[in-house]
């Protein structure tokens, strides 16, 4: 455990209250909704802290539509200009292609959304094009990779992410299928919701457009999975 790199997800500046010196790396961004990316002064203030504390930076990205892509590109360019970006965690093939094309020097990580649907071996296209790391949030899904680095997110596993955000524009729009629409970031006001159903083995946590379960992790077992980076989620990461 001592050799394990420890990182923390920072979705917004107030998340730094969960940070302490044991976390040498920051995962900045949002995998589930590009609308929640920190911008403007908030982003500048986050960067100041990262620079001051000499932390390593991974940009956390999710699936993006055309609008989300514009936001991601803007943030990506901003961070690379500031020369503080070390890695990008990818969960969208468009972002993967864009990074390869425009920023070949940036280290690419396969995020926890894409990693589960790709069976990797040494000859994989992803390794050949410079993939450095693969990430998971559930031990049962970790593949036996002979080489390469593996990260583990805890304590939350996601199992659902939708572009039809169930809380978007809730104050004005009561349609059951409101579509993929602009929102007022209702998710941040509503917070976590407990969801149940006859199909669910246990109640789940809904926040914004994603659902999660909380895992109990036996940290001693992580060595068996060749995990060499732990990523702490201080709250449900939306």
């Amino acid at each position, binding site marked *: 455990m001592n050799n394990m790199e420890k990182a923390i997800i920072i979705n917004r500046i107030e998340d730094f209250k969960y940070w302490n010196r044991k976390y040498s790396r920051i995962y900045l961004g949002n995998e589930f909704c590009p609308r929640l990316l920190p911008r403007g002064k908030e982003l500048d203030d986050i960067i100041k802290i990262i620079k001051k504390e000499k932390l390593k930076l991974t940009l956390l990205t999710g*699936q*993006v*539509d*055309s609008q*989300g*892509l514009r936001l991601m590109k803007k943030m990506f360019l901003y961070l690379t200009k500031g020369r503080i970006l070390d890695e990008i965690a990818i*969960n*969208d*093939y*468009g*972002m993967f*292609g*864009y990074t*390869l*094309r425009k920023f070949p020097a940036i280290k690419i990580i396969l995020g926890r*959304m*894409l990693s*589960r*649907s*790709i*069976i990797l071996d040494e000859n994989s296209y*992803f390794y050949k094009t410079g993939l450095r790391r693969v990430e998971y949030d*559930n031990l049962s*899904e970790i593949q036996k990779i002979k080489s390469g680095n593996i990260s583990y997110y805890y304590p939350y*596993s996601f*199992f*659902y*992410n*939708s*572009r*039809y955000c*169930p*809380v978007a524009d*809730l*104050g004005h*729009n*009561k*349609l*059951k299928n*409101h*579509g*993929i629409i602009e929102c007022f970031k209702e998710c941040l*006001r*509503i*917070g976590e*919701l*407990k*969801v*149940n*159903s*006859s*199909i*669910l*083995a246990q*109640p*789940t946590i*809904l926040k914004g457009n*994603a*659902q999660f*379960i909380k895992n109990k992790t036996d940290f001693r077992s992580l060595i068996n999975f060749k995990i060499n980076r732990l990523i702490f989620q201080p709250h449900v990461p939306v």
Partner: protein
Amino acid sequence: MKILSPIDKIEEALPLIKAGADEFYCGILIGNKNFSTMRSSSLKKSNLSGFGTLRKLVKLVKKKEKKIFLALNDSFINPRQSEVIERNLDKIKESGIDGIIIGNIDLMNRLKKSGLEIIASSLLETKNEETVRFLNEKFKVKRIILDRQITLDDIKNITSRFPKMEFESFIIEGGCRSLISACRRHLVTRKEYLDKKLSWFPHLCWFDFSIENKKIPFFSSKDKKVIAGRLTMPYKCCGACALFQFQKYGITSVKIVGRGFSTVRKVKNIKFIRDALNILERSYREEDFYRKTEKLFEKTFHKKCQRQYCYYPHFFNG
């Protein structure tokens, strides 16, 4: 605009063509193994039994001057399964198939020089122009099945940027509230529903949900029902009203979901979309087209258009 229909057996070809299908996609069992997406019904029901059947089916479809594609789009294809596909490449080519549908980047990379036309599966979740560029430049993909959770604006943006490429959009049957790559229902589904002996494979979207919090900050308790309702998406999903936009955006083909479904159900879906396209040809105004298409839905499926299960609900949200 063409209608792309699933096909599972030779006997279906003529009734589906008669109903109005222009193109088909099918799966195949190679050595009793399935290489396309998992179906809720049995694999035999949703796949052709082997290359002999595939050759006969392709011959029949070609005779009718229609196209047919082979789905090899399981995203979880491992290197050993990829080798099986590569070993059978000659048989796939000899069948005369018009293209192969792939949902796995590594397999796409292995087959990009095969001489077969590669169609990017919806499992690659294309909804931005960079994904189109990536698939086209790296793997020579010229046809892409767009993501289910794509907006009409994104379709317009993509088709206008890549006018030489072909795009397919979902039009009727299966929807999903979660992005495909994000749906890990096995982590939360009750054990009895995961029993492989079950004749159907339950999706979370088919079930009702409840929000258990007593109160929701800033909102009324009644809103809990709205939120819970937005988590479900049972069959039948439909996007026929968006044909109006698809025609303007130059969508090549509209995709009907339903490998493993009965021939009667497939025929009904094709006829509905064909009739909607016929309405579209009569150049009605946008609102009139929606109204007529909704009426057609009601007449065909004997139930009201369920807007809450629309693929592209944006246009009636104003």
